[in-house]
């Protein structure tokens, strides 16, 4: 493993602007080489809203003989690491009546049809990243990492009678428990790194653990004494609390003061500019993987039905407006520009991952990086033939560099295959998964 130059505390703080209370990171200290163990497998799900203009997306050709379309052009440097998967459907994303964006977004990784409600009794399914996190999460400080760009706007209804959690979350810990995402790069960075205190003595550390655990014991007792007095729905809420407490306990127990053993410089910018924000978030994903702080990550480039205005692309209308293109050329052109930009962000992530050398290959080689949207064509709200990219080799489980055409298979089957690569054997998933999608290993 290559040694990286030590990073000074000042450099880091300068980059971080007003962030003051940052303890020394391990990366700033002299490093000891990490043992030559095989690199773990990692998974990223990259969600982008409002569908994709498919004519400019879908490559001609099949197998290794495919050519990148204008929308996919930025992926040229990683073309050999890429699978384009055509013809996969996520029919559980289809709503009752309207509400395609919210329903399909909650089904994006769960493949379960959402119950139509504005709030009461929300229900979809557990998402595949959380299934993965449940299986792999104990190995790392964070079982999973959820990142995104947009908060909700906090007004009105999110999509035709579907509650906002459906529209704003792709990660679901359970049928009614969305896993919220960090939308501020600095907060995400602090969460990952600010807890380490390399100067702490063993005795001090032991004391902190004891204190942390005693607080946890106390509040768990509080919660337990409540439990018996609550009705079904309230118990469910309290269960979420218990889960949080359990995770907190794991974190306290894992405190060891040594910090992450990785050496990438990092400058999280809290900017409202979606370009800077996206880059910061994607850098964080790479860093979190490099440091083995987590192995599963989801990223939402926007929330369902995004109304972002891409003024830096020369566009004045809202994304969602364009996506209802009405077969108007000007809208197609706008969509293609947005799609291209989105794919460029994905390409940036892949190239960063490809640039990280690990034992036995690059970070990208050890990962499965999944890109898609909740729908295909935004005008028709198609849940068929979704725009899907899968990059990386998942440590040898994927043979990339191809365009595979499936003549209609449940998307859930791709997830079953991916779960299998990560050691979770499943024969079914979501509402319509029947078995692992074939062909990924060639």
């Amino acid at each position, binding site marked *: 493993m290559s040694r990286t130059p030590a990073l000074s505390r000042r450099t880091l703080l300068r980059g971080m602007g007003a962030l003051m209370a940052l303890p020394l990171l391990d990366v700033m200290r002299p490093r000891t080489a990490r043992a030559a163990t095989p690199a773990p497998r990692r998974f990223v799900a990259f969600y982008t809203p409002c569908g994709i203009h498919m004519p400019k997306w879908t490559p001609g050709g099949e197998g290794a003989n495919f050519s990148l379309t204008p929308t996919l052009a930025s992926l040229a440097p990683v073309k050999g690491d890429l699978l384009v998967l055509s013809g996969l459907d996520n029919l559980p994303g289809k709503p009752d009546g309207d509400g395609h964006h919210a329903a399909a977004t909650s089904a994006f990784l769960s493949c379960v049809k959402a119950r*139509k409600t504005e*709030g009461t009794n*929300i229900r979809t399914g557990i998402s595949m990243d959380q299934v993965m996190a449940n299986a792999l999460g104990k190995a790392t400080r964070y079982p999973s990492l959820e990142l995104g760009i947009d908060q*909700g706007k906090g007004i009105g*209804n999110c999509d035709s009678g579907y509650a906002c959690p459906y529209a704003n979350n792709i990660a679901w810990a359970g049928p009614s428990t969305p896993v*919220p995402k960090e939308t501020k790069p600095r907060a995400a960075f602090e969460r990952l790194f600010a807890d380490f205190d390399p100067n702490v003595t063993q005795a001090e550390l032991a004391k902190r653990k004891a204190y942390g655990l*005693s607080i946890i014991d106390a509040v768990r007792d509080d919660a337990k004494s409540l439990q018996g007095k609550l009705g079904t729905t309230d118990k469910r809420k309290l269960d*979420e609390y218990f889960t949080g407490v359990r995770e907190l306990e794991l974190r306290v127990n894992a405190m060891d003061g040594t910090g992450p053993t990785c050496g990438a410089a990092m400058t999280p910018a809290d900017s409202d500019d979606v370009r800077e924000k996206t880059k910061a978030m994607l850098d964080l994903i790479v860093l979190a993987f490099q440091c083995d702080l987590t192995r599963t990550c989801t990223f939402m480039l926007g929330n369902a039905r995004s109304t972002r205005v891409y003024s830096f692309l020369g566009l004045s209308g809202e994304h969602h407006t364009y996506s209802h293109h009405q077969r108007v050329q*000007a809208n197609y052109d706008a969509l293609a520009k947005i799609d291209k930009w989105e794919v460029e962000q994905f390409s940036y992530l892949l190239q960063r991952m490809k640039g990280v050398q690990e034992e036995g290959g690059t970070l990208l080689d050890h990962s499965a990086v999944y890109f898609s949207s909740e729908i295909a064509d935004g005008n028709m709200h198609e849940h068929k033939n979704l725009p899907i990219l899968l990059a990386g080799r998942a440590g040898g489980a994927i043979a990339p560099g191809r365009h595979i055409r499936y003549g209609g298979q449940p998307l859930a089957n791709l997830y079953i295959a991916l779960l299998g690569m990560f050691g979770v054997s499943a024969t079914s998933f979501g509402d319509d998964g029947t078995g692992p999608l074939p062909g990924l290993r060639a």
Partner: protein
Amino acid sequence: MHAVTACGWRWWKVGLAAVAVVLAAGCSDSLPKARVLPGPDAPVDPQDALCRSAARDPGRVTLHRLNRAEYNNTVRDLLGDTGSPASSFPPDDHGFGFDNNADVLSMSPLLMEKYSHAAEALVEAAWRRGAFNACVLDPAQPEACARELLKTFARRAWRRPVTPEEVERLVAFVALARQQGDTPEAGVKLALRAVLVSPHFLFRVELDPAPTSTVPHTVSDLELASRLSYFLWSSMPDEALLQAAEGGHLHEPEVLEAQVRRMLADPKARALVDNFAGQWLYTRALDFSQPESRYGFDEPLREAMRQEMQLVFQEFVTGDHRLKDLLDAPFTYVNDRLASHYGLPKPGTPAMTRVELKDHPERAGLFGKGALLTVTANPDRTSPVKRGVWVLEQLLCKGPPPPPPDAGGLAPAVDPTLNIKARMAQHRVDPTCSGCHTLMDPLGFGMENFDPVGRWRTKEEGGAVVDPSGELPGGKAFNGVTEMRAVVKQDPDLSACMTRHLLTYALGRGAEEQDRCTVRDISQQAETRGGRLTDYILAIVRSDAFLQRRGEAEGQKP
């Protein structure tokens, strides 16, 4: 600009998301019907005889986690910390239009982590400020002071008296610290942190005597105190309220009313402006508006618009205006920048100043407010559909059903010399669309004299003359915004709709079909007593939905 096409599929989708209406799916010839929550002026529905006879279901509010605003306000009132620590928490989702909806306020490991960190930082900061100086922790015998301090703090933080066992468990942290060779102070701080991550602090706990019984019961006075304080202040009860509750008097109508009036007069009632009105009137969405640069929209303007809306609503919180007058209140608040944007005389100051709108009736009321007009426009043009839908959903609770996918989808034929109304005429020709659009579009046309950032105009950008006339189903015709808002103000469902939004917010749960009678009663009562916001709030607070709850039958919900 390409644009309007047949049937407005796109126009619609551009719009604010549609409320799913219980009835009609898709557009059709028949007019979509609202969720039936009739107001006091509405013709009597024979079904409403039921409201008099049947046992009323007060519903139940799910265990309510504090949302970000509530957390911030609560630690402000509890510890004097105004640092808004919750702004670094992940965003709260919202349901039924509000982010205090208990059903969608989830707890998560990430949030738990944030709570834990915040608790530590809050306690340290408060300690440094001397917030716990009431007694001295004698190193030799610290327990007595610790007990007093923790009992007092936990009572306020948990919004109820704490049991001796609970207090002793907290005091035990002092012994733990001693074992670890630390000072009593360290132990007390640990206990304080435990109080702040306890479910009793993070959740508003309401207990049913029989959790599986659906027989309604009255909430305890202490639970009522929290209901009240989180409704009016988005924060914890203060000492006066807590004492009224502990004394067992809060449920008495006179005591309750006195508390409500006292609380509304408190500056903390500003929370109603920020959290209720900010969401009901969509002011919050102003943060996300990105109008085209050619409209000259910038941050000072955004801020002035936001403050205008807040100041106007603030007057309704404390003042004597009828709530319905929000639609045409003849005053507003402007500074020089906003005044010139609006074409009003400048007050001669950058500070927001109250002005009368006698000579500018077009600016009176909600429909003349830049904030609303901007958030209901597209970035690059007005959207009569968005504006019309806003009126229907937020004022009349008549959200039309969403259109069918790709409805029409005909190629657009754009003639820039036509005004928007003419261009949208197709909406009302195509039978699959006319049902909804005859309802939505005209209300938006009535506001067409306002451009995408709320400036007055008589010509559209393409040069066509604005036609702000419209006709609503049933033959009500109007010309321009002043006539249009009169029609809306007279709508028999206005009062009930305002009630419904306020009740949804007050309870932190959706007001649904089973609340029909409650909504009707509240709006009737409120209007009878004068129709001020205060009257609505008092009527809500006196309703069974606010005063009672019930358990949940086992297995009733999945």
